[in-house]
């Protein structure tokens, strides 16, 4: 297997999985809310790659994956917008962006 050999769909999926796992690790471990949100973006990104790649390899004419990716992007853009607004609101209230500051759900 040489470097120049054509790449199959599995490679894309694998890449996506690794990226997703990295994002997951970040989302679970970081205590800065901003970092958590960034990690979430990473995960969303990984999924988009997956969508596009699978669509390209299986049914390129339909482009369903691409459309889904578009919608997914919209949603994640909305999500990060809201998330960051939330961070700002949190910061104004608690003067910190630590995730520990959000304990309303603590019983």
């Amino acid at each position: 297997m040489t470097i120049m050999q054509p790449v199959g769909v599995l490679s894309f999926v694998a890449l996506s999985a690794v990226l997703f796992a990295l994002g997951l690790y970040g989302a679970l471990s970081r205590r800065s809310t901003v970092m958590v949100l960034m990690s979430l973006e990473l995960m969303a990104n990984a999924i988009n790659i997956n969508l596009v790649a699978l669509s390209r390899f299986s049914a390129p004419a339909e482009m369903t994956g691409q459309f889904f990716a578009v919608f997914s992007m919209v949603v994640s853009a909305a999500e990060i917008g809201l998330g960051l607004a939330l961070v700002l609101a949190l910061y104004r209230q608690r003067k910190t962006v630590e995730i520990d500051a959000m304990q309303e759900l603590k019983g």
Partner: protein
Amino acid sequence: MGYVIAIPLLPALAFGVLAPLSNRARNAAIWVPVAAVCGSLLLSLAAFARVWPGGHEGEAVYRASAVFATLGSVNLHAGVLLDPISAVMLVVVTLVGAAVQVYSVGYMHRDERIGWYFAVLSLFTAAMLALVLSDNFLQLYMAWEVMGLCSYLLIGFWHEQEAPRKASLKAFLTTRVGDVGFVLGLAVMYATAGSFDFAVVLHGFTWVPATATAVSLLFLFGAIGKSAQVPLHVWLPDAMAGPTPASALIHAATMVAAGVFLVARALPIFQASGVALTVTMIVGVTTAIVGGLLAAVQHDIKKVLAYSTISQLGYMFFALGAGGIVAGIFHLMTHAFFKSLLFLGAGVIIHAAHTQDMREMGGLAKKMPVTTATFTIGSLALAGIFPFSGFWSKDEILTVLWTEGHYVVFALALAAAFVTAFYVARLWFRVFTGPEQTPELAEAHAEMLVPMGVLAAITAVIGFGSPYFARFLGHTGAWPEAGIALTSTAVAGLGLALGWCAYGRRTKVINTRPLKERAGFVYDALAMKLYFDLTYDYFIVKQYARLADALWAFDHTVIDGAVNGAGAIWKAGADVGALFDTYVIDGAVNGTATLVRAAGAKVRRIQVGRIQAYQGLMVGALVLLMLWFVVKGA
């Protein structure tokens, strides 16, 4: 004949008009209910005339009904049934009702809420009329409950004071105990016969003895509550906290007699059972004696009359238990007249003497001739002295007992008659003879005296109608037998004589202590109302309150605690997950050397990093799920 429907509707309309008004407008409009009940009285007399010369019970002269509920194939009716019994009851209820309302105009004229008083009185009259006219047991029950409401409202009429408030609650709840039985009786009846209509369940359905016993005993339980029979009699004496005319109408003449009316109506079912008749008789005779004995030790004039009512209702019950429907209903009627007469008289006496305690009364005969005369007529009727109405009806009851062969009950009934005569004498001599204790005694106004006069006149003459009454109800009537009449008169005379010996010969205020000391524990027991109230209060009311409190504690500690506990366990699970995270996984990675330091740093995280702990759990579960799918797929 359509006007029969108007008989209960007139007072109902009066209530409908008065109830939404403001207090002041209501007070100005009390002529509305008085006019309504007078109208009902006239219509009732017309209806009675139409039924004359009578016939068998259930043979309707007029019947009308309308469907008010449809359940599958069953229709529930509201209707009127005019037959001899209901015609009699109509006249009794409207006559006493009219007398009481006219009397109340004088008696209550200074009360701030007289309008409300008249409104409730009207509602009561409407309900009672709907009850006696009812052509089915469901409507009867509904009217029965509405009467309970009116009774509650009138007993607690002066609710600013503690005693009426408590008495009203006690009355409603005690009668409602009986009503539970009544409702279940209705349920059994419906499940068995599929209807509530008299025409079906009384005359068109063959009862199996077992279900007949169930239905009739449950009905009897309801009647025991409403008619204040032992053991549910405790509410009636307390109910005297209400206005006296209301006591006359509701707690003497009409509502409490509804239980008797119910048993009389349902008598075919009782007869199908057999056992139920015996039970009715036992309840009645027990009540007659207990009520009489308790009446003999009361000092409050209204309570004497209340226990007397209980006792007399017992009379009606054992009359019915012996199968003497004519005797029972006749006694109901005569008792309604003379007892309401006595209550109205007691109202005048209380107004004049400014007390209800007989020990503080005396010598009223000289200053209040009209009251004395009418009250004396009522007393003699109650004691069963010829020619007043009580003599005739009591005699009929005794005759029924004798001819049906209930000799033990006959003897007990005579004993009850003796006690009755005794307490009547005790009451009369204490109030009307002896030294005057109240200055400025004066006779009452005409609007109070006229109704009393009317009732007294009826009491004096109605007994002579005894044989015709029986024929009116479709039975054979006869004049009293000499033997029984003489026996009962002799017993009553003995009772009066004993009363005179004990209370009539005094010249100064009597001291009751010697009697108390001689009677010893018997007197104590009677003074404590035979411990019924204490027993109920301690064993039922207090224990229920304790049970309720205990259940409440149970609810918010155990049940709610279990719920909150489940939440806590879930939370603890998350904490354990975090601990596991801290000690096991981290420990394995960092090695035991750094364990203590890491733990110190991470203990903080147990408390705070909860969102991500949940996320972690979620992902962990997802991993497991995926692995399972992969393994399964492979």
